């Protein structure tokens, strides 16, 4: 009588408690990933875009010290609006405020923004304001591309658009730089804000 081969050691069912621990970890990680997909506020992006359009009008067409002050104030305002709108959407939709994905997104976006701040100080001190629009757009686009891994597909697409616009701004005549800022931080934010609001619940 033939005997059936004994099952290989690696096919032994895991102990019940090991499976339980793995399941709870899986549930938590899946909930974090799903929450990251929905906490980005499209209305917040629209608000940021509209304020950037206003900043573009205030700052004027020629990059310089006054132009820079307006855009720095706009960046600070955008940061506040972004955080508040995310909190608002999380509360309205009764989503869990999970730190994991937001922290990852913040780290991915924060590093290029920090690099941008240092470069801005260095370039402004050297009085090379004309390069700033390209630098800002490219670094912000890189941050969105990296942070977009933890969010909806529209975010990395928006990052790619910012990156492409930044590259164009670097090689375009200096007079077009200020316009690229308005198109990017104003137009792209409004456009993608509408898409996010329509497709992902506000």
């Amino acid at each position, binding site marked *: 009588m033939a005997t059936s081969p004994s099952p290989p050691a690696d096919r032994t069912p895991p102990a*019940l408690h090991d499976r339980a621990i793995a*399941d*709870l970890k*899986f*549930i938590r990680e899946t*909930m974090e990933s799903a929450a990251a997909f929905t906490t980005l506020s499209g209305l917040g992006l629209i608000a940021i875009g509209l304020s950037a359009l206003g900043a573009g009008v205030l700052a004027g067409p020629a990059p310089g010290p006054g132009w820079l002050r307006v855009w720095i104030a706009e960046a600070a305002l955008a940061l506040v609006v972004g955080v508040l709108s995310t909190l608002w959407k999380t509360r309205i*939709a009764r*989503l869990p405020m*999970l730190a994991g994905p937001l922290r990852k997104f913040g780290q991915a976006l924060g590093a290029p923004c920090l690099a941008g701040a240092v470069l801005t100080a260095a370039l402004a001190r050297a009085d090379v304001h004309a390069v700033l629009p390209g630098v800002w757009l490219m670094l912000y686009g890189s941050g969105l591309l990296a942070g977009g891994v933890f969010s909806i597909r529209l975010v990395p697409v928006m990052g790619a658009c910012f990156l492409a616009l930044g590259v164009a701004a670097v090689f375009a005549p200096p007079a077009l730089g200020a316009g690229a800022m308005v198109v990017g931080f104003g137009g792209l934010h409004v456009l993608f804000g509408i898409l996010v609001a329509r497709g992902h619940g506000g």
Partner: protein
Amino acid sequence: MAEPAPRKRRPERPAPAPPALRGVRGDTGPDAARELDALLHHRMRLGMVSALAAAESLAFNDLKAVLQTSDGNLSVHARKLEDAGYVTCTKTFENRRPRTDYRLTARGRQALGRYVGHMESIIRATKDTLGR
């Protein structure tokens, strides 16, 4: 040579729980393994319910991206959860393109809560046993 007639297989009985778990009180009952929700014990379905518990609703493509799975696999398991009344499915058109959204029902949320409770009880029971 003719193949032997297939023997009628007896239905498999679920494996008994480890002795340490038999005396667990609370959510697990006398036999934790047997009381688990078989529908949620599958990784893909557990992932779908967990993802939908964290979001008000998710589109098919978003859910597919969260769970990193294929269209076919997601559809099959979504149908099983729908049949059990754990999720609802809404089909609409957006810019003339079909769009499918999933939402967790109250029943699905309760089932996930029960499942998590079972898992926690199993872990507690194991800790208690080790602590003796």
